[in-house]
């Protein structure tokens, strides 16, 4: 079993080389979870003392009822937890809520109208599907109604873009879920839908387009953009998983850099980074690719290091911890692969079905199923080792967040702060 200091070497260093610097330096704190899948958008936190065990009645620091629906993850910045929700008869009532991280008390609650609600999955979709992102000054919230809001952390609106008004309503059967990404002074939003797809980078201060790339060949998908750093040059690449391909763009300009062909027609998981690789899932019966960034043109034949057709999920994103890459199918079949070779190390049937993506910290991986049970597994070891099995008695489809020794878990109706302490 690896000692704690090994995690720092084996876990932190690869991530330091490989995450995209999307935030100001002061934001790169182990305790913050500033956007979709955490600081590096890979589901991994360097936080310590994260709880291993809890239940519906034990180990819950606080529990807050949320309005309406939402599958967006909560985000954490210092002493604030921010979460979005949506309701209303026409699903056009949008909520951005700020809670005190210590006790769940509502600090402010902004209610806004959405432009153009779409169809959505009755339990796994909502107009509040994309996870917001913050740089510590403002929170940038994208809703499936086609609206982007910039709000300061005291709850004051700074700007609003109605992308649906400007570029056409989204046409989506499961609601748009792509979570915005921060790159330097840009907010990047991937808009893949049945209509005219595009990706847009908006100036985070003014809300104005800095660049926008139309993607008419792109079908609907629900993946979120990722940012990869090319180790040799230090440049960054914007990685977009979508219909039948993965694109790499220059995040400064939107210029196309490379394409990797072979994804499924519809893509949901967000790629993760590690060992100088990008690992991208394209769905059941599709190929999972581990490939190197930094190419140009069609890199399908030149940059793929390994690939597999085993164990790919439809919805949950994968997670890479240390030397291992983990995938969980929607039906609960978990596979662990050696991250650098793709060799399967173990496979295990976990209980229940899965929509939420796993998260990891403190040597542990947390797999939470649709029934609200969390299986806690030892991370970065070559065999399956279950540490805990925590029931919650409430459905969970949103991915959780980690911060300040807590796990923040969103059920269909509540936000919970889990600290694992006995009452």
């Amino acid at each position, binding site marked *: 079993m690896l000692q704690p200091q090994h995690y720092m070497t084996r876990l932190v260093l690869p991530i330091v080389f490989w995450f995209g610097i999307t935030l100001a330096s002061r934001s790169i704190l182990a305790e913050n979870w500033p956007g979709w899948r955490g600081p590096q958008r890979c589901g991994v936190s360097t936080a310590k003392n994260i709880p291993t065990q809890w239940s519906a009645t034990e180990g819950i620091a606080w529990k807050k009822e949320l309005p309406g629906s939402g599958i967006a993850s909560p985000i954490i910045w210092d002493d604030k937890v921010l979460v979005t929700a949506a309701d209303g008869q026409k699903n056009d009532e949008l909520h951005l809520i700020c809670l005190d991280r210590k006790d769940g008390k509502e600090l402010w609650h902004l209610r806004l109208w959405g432009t153009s609600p779409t169809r959505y999955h009755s339990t796994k979709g909502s107009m509040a599907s994309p996870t917001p992102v913050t740089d510590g000054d403002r929170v940038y919230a994208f809703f499936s109604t086609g609206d982007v809001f910039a709000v300061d952390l005291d709850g004051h609106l700074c700007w609003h873009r109605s992308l649906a008004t400007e570029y056409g309503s989204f046409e989506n059967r499961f609601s748009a879920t792509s979570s915005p990404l921060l790159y330097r002074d840009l907010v990047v939003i991937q808009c893949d839908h049945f209509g005219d797809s595009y990706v847009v980078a908006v100036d985070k201060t003014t809300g104005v387009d800095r660049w926008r790339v139309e993607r008419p060949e792109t079908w609907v998908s629900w993946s979120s953009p990722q940012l990869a750093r090319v180790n040799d040059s230090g440049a960054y690449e914007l990685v977009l998983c979508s219909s039948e391909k993965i694109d790499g763009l220059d995040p400064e300009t939107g210029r196309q850099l490379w394409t990797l062909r072979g994804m499924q027609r519809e893509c949901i998981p967000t790629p993760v980074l590690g060992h100088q690789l990008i690992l991208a899932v394209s*769905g059941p019966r599709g190929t999972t690719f581990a490939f190197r960034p930094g190419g140009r043109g069609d890199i399908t034949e030149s940059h793929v290091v390994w690939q597999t057709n085993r164990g790919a999920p439809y919805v949950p994103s994968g997670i890479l911890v240390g030397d291992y890459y983990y995938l969980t199918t929607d039906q609960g079949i978990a596979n662990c692969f050696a991250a650098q070779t793709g060799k399967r190390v173990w496979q295990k049937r976990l209980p229940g079905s899965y929509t939420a993506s796993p998260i990891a910290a403190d040597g542990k991986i947390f797999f939470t199923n649709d029934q609200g049970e969390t299986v806690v597994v030892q991370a970065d070891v070559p065999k399956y080792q279950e540490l805990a099995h925590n029931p919650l008695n409430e459905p969970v489809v949103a991915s959780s967040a980690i911060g300040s020794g807590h796990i923040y878990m969103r059920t269909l109706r509540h936000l919970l702060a889990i600290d694992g302490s006995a009452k």
Partner: protein
Amino acid sequence: MFHQSKIIILLGGFSWLASSSAVGQPVDELFKTLAQTGPQASGSADAQQASDTLMTHGVEILPELLAAMDTTNIVAANWYRTVYQIIVRRELSKQKPQFPVTELRACARDAQHQGRVRRLALALLDEIDPAFRNELLRHMLDDAEFRHDAVKLVLDTGNQAQMANQSELAREKYHQALRHARKSEQVTRAVDLLRSMGEEVRIIDQMGFVTRWYLLGPFDAPNTSGFDTVFPPENETNVDATYDGQNGQTLHWTLTETPDRMGQLNLIQLIAATKEAVGYAYAELDSPTEQTVQIRCGADDNLSVWVNGEKVFARQQWLNGTRLDRFTATANLKKGRNQVLVKICQGPQHVNPSVPNNWSMQLRFCDETGRGIRLTNLLPSLTKSD
């Protein structure tokens, strides 16, 4: 260094002036500033200052804010709303809040206002004048925004009457709900409640579903090619003709009536359990007059609709469920016989093998409010009672 200090002071001064330029401006000028927000976040910087100043005002500007929110510019509407929220929250925190109740009620009642603005006013009235809601809804059964809430109130009143053993009142309320309901769950609820009282009502007639069709298929349409491929029935519809179908089978038109209470046709059962295919549904309907109607329809995966040879609807989407009133189109009906042809595409199996590969459609004729229009189906009947 002294010059640098002077520059810093001057810059600071200019900054202070800029940030406070909205202070002292007349309210209508501040409203105009918010109204000028729009695409590309234009006007946002000025709007921040203007809204900060407007937030210092009291409830006296709430009616004006509600009127201003009544705009198609949703960006401006949200700016107004942020000001409204702050003023309302501040007033609610007082021991004796004083709101312009008369104006709020007038806003909620006025169907000329946008629905979201009326709901906002009603949400505040729910907190300060809770008896108003039911008083309003009693008059909203034909209101585009509050119809659903009003029908719910009627259903609840009927249920209360039932519990008080007032059967005739309950029956009257359920019929009232049925006349005014436009959402399937309320229609079915009213029908089920009447059935529980021994009275049968056909949802199909209430909603205007077309349930009797000639069906044809499956034509072979690999992958998602079916939407754009023109098969013979689109050129000429002849219910006596035969065609070459998928897997070499010979296709015939088959007369069918769906038993589904919501008029949905399960084509997996009625045509074939197949994928990557195209099917057709054909009906002839008699209209008592020449009229413009709405067609509300849905399909899994997608459908195209022709009325009297004119394509009135087509939307290429895949892996959608058939949902009530998913799409709306307008069609012109002749007095007398009208021909309706529907093409329904069935796509490939979903990548997630647990997702069923459904193939279905649903179509109804209604007026612009969603009330079903009764059209006589001219196809041969399948039951003795017809």
